[in-house]
């Protein structure tokens, strides 16, 4: 078994053993339950109004689409938070604890450790996002009777968001202490959210300065830009009425597809840079 896989497996095992996986699954099950309950209540409310002749102005698929957006947004946010907090001390924590002293002298390369940890968390996040997106879709399909478009690609983009944050957090972990890293990355994550909102306001008001601030933010940390692409893909039905309702969680101005390429390079670059930094570091 290659050393990278040993560290990936070890990382997964640590997450399970420290009950992180259990905690995340329990809370996520709670979320899915509440989501299903909300969706069914929305549907029965809609049906009641149709039955009593008080037909709403907006079709049900529009509500359903917004609910799916909300569901995906929550998955996006939760997996992002999970990516940051799971890996915040992945390097710094072990440096502080001194656990690397017995590991690094072994016949493994330092990059095996970083890439292995990344792979372990990446697998965990991918499985988590896949499960959560599938739950949202099952609820939407069987309770709401609505199937949004571009399911697989949108879900893949949500995975990309979490991998991007994971890579950035691991990079931070080779530079900062766990606490500092957590604060820095979470602030960047917040800045990305705000940057997205600023860019949308900029486009709406046709204010170039605001738009540019948003674009620059997306380049510094493209997590929100990728999410907005996922969000806009979920709305694209060819039915224009679907795009009437805007919430802070949905995207109007969708980012360009090259943003996906940029985000991929960003994530890979962050991992590569962190292996380089960790390789040079005195432990």
């Amino acid at each position, binding site marked *: 078994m290659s050393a990278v896989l040993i560290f990936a497996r070890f990382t997964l095992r640590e997450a399970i053993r420290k009950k992180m996986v259990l905690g995340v699954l329990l809370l996520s099950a709670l979320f899915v339950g509440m989501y299903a309950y909300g969706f069914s209540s929305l549907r029965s409310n809609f049906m009641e109004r149709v039955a009593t002749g008080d037909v709403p102005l907006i079709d049900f698929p529009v509500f359903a689409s917004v609910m799916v957006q909300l569901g995906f947004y929550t998955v996006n946010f939760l997996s992002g938070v999970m990516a940051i907090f799971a890996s915040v001390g992945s390097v710094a924590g072990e440096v502080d604890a001194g656990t*690397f002293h017995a590991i690094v002298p072994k016949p493994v390369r330092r990059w095996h450790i970083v890439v292995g940890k990344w792979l372990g968390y990446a697998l965990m996040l991918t499985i988590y996002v896949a499960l959560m997106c599938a739950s949202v879709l099952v609820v939407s399909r069987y309770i709401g009777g609505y199937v949004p478009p571009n399911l697989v690609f949108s879900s893949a983009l949500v995975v990309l968001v979490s991998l991007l944050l994971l890579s950035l957090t691991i990079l931070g972990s080779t530079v900062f202490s766990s606490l500092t890293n957590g604060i820095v990355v979470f602030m960047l994550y917040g800045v990305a959210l705000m940057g997205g909102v600023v860019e949308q306001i900029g486009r709406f008001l046709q204010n170039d300065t605001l738009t540019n601030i948003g674009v620059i933010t997306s380049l510094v940390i493209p997590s929100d830009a990728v999410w907005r692409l996922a969000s806009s893909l979920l709305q694209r039905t060819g039915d224009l009425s679907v795009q009437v309702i805007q919430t802070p969680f949905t995207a109007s101005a969708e980012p360009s597809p090259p943003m996906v390429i940029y985000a991929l390079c960003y994530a890979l670059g962050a991992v590569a840079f962190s292996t380089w930094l960790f390789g040079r570091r005195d432990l």
Partner: protein
Amino acid sequence: MDLMTESGPAIYVENLRKEYRGKVAVQNLSLQVEHGEVFGFLGPNGAGKTTTIKMLNGLVRPTSGRLSVLGRPLGDAEARRRIGFLPEQFRFHEWLRASEFLDFHGSLYGLSRLERQARIPDVLDLVGLTGRADSRLRTFSKGMLQRIGIAQAVIADPKLVFLDEPTSALDPLGRRDVRDIIRTLQSRGVTVFLNSHLLGEVEAVCDRVAIITEGRVAAIGPTTDLLNGDHVVEVRARDVSETLLTEIRRRYTVLETNIPSIGSTRDFDGGIQTMDRPGITDCQLVLSVADSAVPGLVELLVRDGAAIHALVPRQRSLEDLFVDIVQVGGDR
């Protein structure tokens, strides 16, 4: 593989230097450790011992100098496969069970599942933790963690083992066990590089010793040579004149002076005059004397009319040597 490791010394260090942001931790350190040797690495806190061990294990990058381990340049995977290391801060993943911990570290050495299954009971037995294979490390005492740390260092049947303070958390029984483990390794031809503060322990197990101060080697050699380089002689004599005392002080290094107060009146220069014979005293001296100079000392005493009651050669302890060297360093 074994042919490769037999060529050249087990550890070769030449002009090794490490600076941390301009602060020198190790300067110009050179030493060589032969295959099958148990090598003691001593020095006061902050002398650069742990930094040197970290450099030898690829944890810290040297600023300059040449290093090789098992005849291979630093970082060579083949060499690392044959090296075990117990770090000073023996902190491990405490959520693991003892057997899982050894399995993980065994897999890092590239041992197959079968090899690991075979080795784990062996090394647990070696460190006296046989019954604890399924206990989590979280439940281990410091001494047990140190033992399991030794176990991970030897899981891959290494040719060279670094032990950085292997007994710091152990009680006297545990220390004896570690001494036995080192002797077992020695009997199997394993080279052991031992860093310890417990000088008695180093003295008991090490073939050769290096004492380092301020990042360089202050003394190095076979343990017995270092300890017997100068004889320490205890002299008890009566009727020692003041001139004789002065002459002894001039010729030899006086480590201790003890003049019993028999019929004493007043002190002069550490000696005590007897009342009836001014300038004459009884004394007990501990001197550091070169092997060849012992007959000369006896002759001097006899010629001056001193009555020799005892002339006892004393084994110099590593502690004496250590204190001598470190104090010289500190006085500079």
